[in-house]
């Protein structure tokens, strides 16, 4: 292994391997950079170098952050966005799994419907919003539908890939042993397709959150997206930045939680698989 490291990074661990390169290895330089940049940000405002409504000081952003994290109105604002995100995510994921399995199993359906799907997939999401406003209005139905549409594609495509990669030989073996079809599906296809489904769902989760926010920016009257845009109009930059930070942390946490859920489910599916043998 050391051999690989050395030949890959000849300029870090040279034949004159010095203590200096060992120090860089430990990674404090990156953290220092972040600290320096944050300090520069704060100083740029506090020394008066930058004096503008659109460039808030780090300290005021942090204040707004603390205020927002403890405020009820912010909690309900994030709550409503999360509600729409979750509804759309679940709807899109379920549809995606159904369509993915269907396309994978019935190749003719695939041939007929895939071009239509491809057209929708390559269309940028904001382009779909105004037409849907005409058809669905500007309430929750619109936003949930759009989130579902966006969440649908990664799940559908990944599920399709998962169904396809199941070795047909395994299925033939099951047929030879006259294993009932449902059992074959659960024993063979489910465990190997599940990781793909989860991979697609994880991507969709991130997309769901951001699309929920985008729809609120374009057609909202409440929610995080609407809040951020209103703060922009009101030139209240510190609140705006604070909301963005909380949004980013939220996205990160959701992703991590989902990864844990994914690990648990895959383990459960494996147990199920063993129990059915």
């Amino acid at each position, binding site marked *: 292994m050391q051999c690989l490291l*050395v030949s890959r990074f000849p300029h870090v661990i040279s*034949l004159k391997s010095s203590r200096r390169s060992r120090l860089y290895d430990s990674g404090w330089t990156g953290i220092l950079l972040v600290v320096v940049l944050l300090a520069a940000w704060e100083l740029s405002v506090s020394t008066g170098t930058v004096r503008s409504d659109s460039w808030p000081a780090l300290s005021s952003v942090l204040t707004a952050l603390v205020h927002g994290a403890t405020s009820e109105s912010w909690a309900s604002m994030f709550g409503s966005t999360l509600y729409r995100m979750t509804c759309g995510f679940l709807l899109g994921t379920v549809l995606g799994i159904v369509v993915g399995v269907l396309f994978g199993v019935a190749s003719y359906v695939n041939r007929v419907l895939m071009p239509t799907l491809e057209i929708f997939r390559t269309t940028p999401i904001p382009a779909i919003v105004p037409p849907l406003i005409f058809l669905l209005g500007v309430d929750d139905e619109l936003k949930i539908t759009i989130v579902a549409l966006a969440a649908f594609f990664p799940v559908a495509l990944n599920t399709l890939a998962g169904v396809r990669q199941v070795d047909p030989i395994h299925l033939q073996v099951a047929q030879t042993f006259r294993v009932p079809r449902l059992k074959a599906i659960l024993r063979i296809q489910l465990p190997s397709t599940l990781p793909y489904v989860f991979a697609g769902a994880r991507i969709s989760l991130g997309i769901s959150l951001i699309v929920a926010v985008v729809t609120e920016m374009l057609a909202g009257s409440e929610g995080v997206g609407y809040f951020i845009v209103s703060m922009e109009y009101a030139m209240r930059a510190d609140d705006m930045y604070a909301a963005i930070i909380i949004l980013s942390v939220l996205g990160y946490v959701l992703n991590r939680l989902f990864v844990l859920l994914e690990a648990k489910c895959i383990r459960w599916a494996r147990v199920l698989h063993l129990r059915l043998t």
Partner: protein
Amino acid sequence: MKAPAAPLSPGRRESDLLVIKGVSKTYGSAAQGVMAIRTVDLTVRAGEFMSIVGPSGCGKSTLLQIAAGLLPATVGEVQLGGTKVTSPPEGMVCLFQQYSRSLFPWLTVEDNVRFAFDHHASLDRGKTGERCRRYLEMVGLADFRRNYPWELSGGMQQRVAIARALAAEPRILLLDEPFSSVDALTRLELHGLIVDIWSRTGVTILLVTHDVDEAVFLSDRIALLTKRPSVLAKLFENKLPRPRDPVSSGEDPDFLSLRHELLSRVLDPR
């Protein structure tokens, strides 16, 4: 292309091309590390064909990589033509075991060979093409110069790698088990090819192999390493007359006795 001659240190002969002096290699820290090579002293003379053999895991490939300047030695040093080796030096090219991974898949066979020497963008494409063709002809692949490596068989890919190495016109070639992943018949063909090239160009060759037969057939001298942590067990002189024929040499008594001694010592658990 010859490096300026360094003043001879005491005990060094003019014909000593590659000198491995007291090389030791330990992976990891001194306390909990794995010592691959305890200490090896070896000298390769200019123009000779030397092989290094030994049991699996004895560090022969590691030793070659150190000699090639790709890996640093923990203790000791390597000298090429009197100059210390700290990084891959001028006049030396190393050929890797995983030849199919060593050819660039985005380049044609000809462009792969050209990579060996086109450091300077100022080189004329016509002249470089001529040089590439010459070395591809030497390995019998001139007709395939516009193909991509992944379109060729394993043996052909290895020949492209050889042509590329030769195109750099080195003084010494280091070969790291180059024939271990080809089938037996292709291996014999490649043996013939490498001996042919060696006798035609006069290049020095240092070959690492686990195949004792191969070492005896090809080399002038054979260095036998012990198992890990390795030292040089014995240096064998191979007096078999050249040209050597793959069919009849297998029945030659001198060949067989050398092979016998080498093989029994390699397989010896001690």
